[in-house]
C-alpha cells in the first residue's frame, strides 16, 4: 500500500534522476485522479443499475420500511445533538457580530431561518447521515462482499444492487426528508433559545417568517432528496468494491465517508447555484 521507494543502484545515469522525479510527481498527482476516476465509475455504474431496478424490479416495501426505521433510529439522536449545538453556535456567532457591526438584532431570527432552510439544515444533516448511516451501509455490504455473501446472492438469482441497495435508496430519501425537517426544527429552536438567553432577543422577534419564500422550502426539499439518493448509492458502491478480509471492510467504510461527503458537497454546490439562479430571485 505505502510503497517504499526502491534503492537506486549506483550505476544510474545522471539524466535518469530528473525523469524518475518527474515520473514520481506525475504518479503523485495522477494516482489520486485515477483512484477518483475509478470510484466515480463505480458510483455511476451502481447509480445506473439502481435507476433500472427502481423502474423495473419488484419493490420490497417491507424491506424499505425496515431500513427506514433502522436508519432513522440510528441517526435521530445524533442529528438532533448536532443540529442543536450548531444552532446555538451559529446564532451566538452571528449575534456577536451583528451586535458589534450593525447593533440591531431584530433581523437575526428571519435571516438565520433563511440560511438554515437553504443551506445548513439539509447539508449538515446529510453529512451526519453520511457519517452514521453511510458507513453503516458500506460496512454491511462490504463485509457481505468479503464473506462471499454477494456471490451467494447472485447464485441464488438475486441481483445485489436490486436486492440490497434499492431498498436502502428509497429508505434513504424518506429518512433524509424526515431528518432534515427534524434537524431544521431543532436548530431553529436552539437558535431561538440562544438568542433569548445570550442577547435578550424576544422569541416573537426571532420567530418572524417574513423573509421566507417558497423557493427556500423547495430548495431544502430538493437538497434533502438529492442527498438521500446519493448517500446509499455511494455507500453501497463502496461496499461492493471491498475486497480482502477485514482490511477490505475498513477500507470500504473509509472510502464511503469521504466519497459521500464529497458528493454531498458537490451536490450542495450545484443545487445552491441552481437555487441562486432560478429559485430565489
Amino acid at each position, binding site marked *: 500500500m*505505502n510503497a517504499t521507494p526502491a534503492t537506486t543502484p549506483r550505476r544510474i545515469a545522471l539524466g535518469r534522476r530528473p525523469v524518475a522525479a518527474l515520473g514520481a510527481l506525475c504518479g503523485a498527482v495522477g494516482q*489520486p485522479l485515477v483512484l477518483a476516476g475509478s470510484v466515480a465509475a463505480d458510483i455511476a455504474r451502481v447509480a445506473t443499475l439502481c435507476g433500472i431496478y427502481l423502474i423495473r424490479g419488484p419493490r420490497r416495501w*417491507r*424491506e424499505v420500511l*425496515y431500513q427506514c426505521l433502522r436508519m432513522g433510529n440510528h441517526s435521530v439522536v*445524533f442529528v438532533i*445533538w*448536532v443540529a442543536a*449545538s*450548531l444552532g*446555538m*453556535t*451559529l446564532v*451566538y*456567532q452571528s449575534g*456577536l*457580530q451583528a451586535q458589534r457591526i450593525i447593533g440591531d438584532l431584530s433581523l437575526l431570527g428571519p*435571516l438565520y431561518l*433563511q*440560511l438554515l432552510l*437553504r*443551506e445548513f439544515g439539509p447539508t449538515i444533516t446529510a*453529512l*451526519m447521515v453520511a*457519517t*452514521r448511516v453511510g*458507513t*453503516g451501509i*458500506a*460496512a*454491511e455490504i*462490504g*463485509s457481505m462482499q*468479503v*464473506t462471499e455473501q454477494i456471490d451467494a446472492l447472485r447464485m441464488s438469482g438475486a441481483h445485489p444492487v436490486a436486492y440490497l441497495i434499492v431498498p436502502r435508496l428509497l429508505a434513504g430519501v424518506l429518512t433524509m426528508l424526515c431528518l432534515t425537517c427534524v434537524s431544521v426544527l431543532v436548530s431553529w429552536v436552539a437558535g431561538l433559545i440562544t438568542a433569548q438567553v445570550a442577547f435578550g432577543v424576544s422569541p416573537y422577534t426571532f420567530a418572524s417568517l417574513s423573509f421566507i419564500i417558497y423557493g427556500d422550502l423547495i430548495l431544502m426539499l430538493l437538497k434533502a432528496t438529492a442527498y438521500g439518493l446519493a448517500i446509499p448509492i455511494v455507500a453501497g458502491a463502496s461496499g461492493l468494491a471491498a475486497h480482502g*478480509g*477485514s*482490511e*477490505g*471492510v*475498513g*477500507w*470500504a*467504510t*473509509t472510502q464511503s*465517508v*469521504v466519497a459521500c*461527503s*464529497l458528493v454531498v*458537497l*458537490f451536490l*450542495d*454546490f450545484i443545487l*445552491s*447555484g441552481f*437555487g*441562486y*439562479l432560478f429559485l*430565489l*430571485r
Partner: protein
Amino acid sequence: MRPRPAPPHPLWLRPVAAAGERGLQVWSATAGVGRLSWQILRRLLPPRMDARELLRNLYTVGVKSFPIILVTALFVGAIMVIQAGLYVQQYGAEGLLGWGAGFATLREVSPLLIALMFNGRVGAKNTAELGTMKVTEQIDALRALAIDPIDYLVMPRFIAMVFMMSLLVVVGDATALIGGAFTSQLLLGVDMRIFFQSLIDYVALEDFTLGVYKAATFGVAIGITSCHFGLAVSGGAVGVGKAVNNAVVAGAISIFLLNYLVTYLIP
C-alpha cells in the same frame, strides 16, 4: 427477512432496556476516550515517541489527505459565497460580499467542514488500521516484544493529526477564499478585486486564528477518538466496520461539541 430474535424482556421494558444499553455503550466509549486522553497527556511531557513513525504518519496523514481537503475547501468557499450572495442581492451591498462569506468561512464553516472531512478520511482510516492490527493480534505481538503500543502507535498518530489538521485548515482557508473569489466573479458577477478588498477591510486576523485554534482542538478530538475505537475493536471484519462507524460518529459529535465550547470561550 427477520431481524434478530428479541431478548426475553416484557414488551413495556424493551425501550428502557434499549436505551439503557445505548447509555452503557456511550458511557464505555466516553470512559475509554478519557482514559486514552490521560495516557496521551502523560506521554506528552516529556515527549516520548518513535521519531520514524512520527515522520511516516506526518506523511500519510498530511500529504495523502491534501487533495481531498483542497477540493472540500474549494466547495466550501464557493457555497458560502453563493449563500452570502443571496443576502448581498437582497440588500445590494456588493461591497460586503467578501466580509459576509469570508467571515463565516474562516471562523466557522471552513474549520468545521475540513475537520469533518479529516475525521472521515484520516480518522476512519486510522481506526481501520488500528482495528485490523488488533484483530490480527499485532497489538499483542508488540506488547510481547515489550513495546508499548501507545508510545509506538498512538503518540505519533496523535501528534501528526493535530499538527496536520492545523496546517490543512490554514491552507484550506486560503483555498476556500480563492474558490469563493472565483465563484463571486463567475457566478455572481462581483469582481474579484471588490471581493478581496472587502475581505481585507472587514475580516480581522483574529477570525483566522480562531479557526486555527479550532482546527488544533478538532485534531486532538479526532486523534483520540479514532485511536481509542481502533484499539478497542473485537469481532473480526464486522467488528472493524462497526468500530470505524462508531469512531467517525464519536469524532463528529466531539467536533461539534468542541466547536461550541471554543466559540463560547474565545469571543
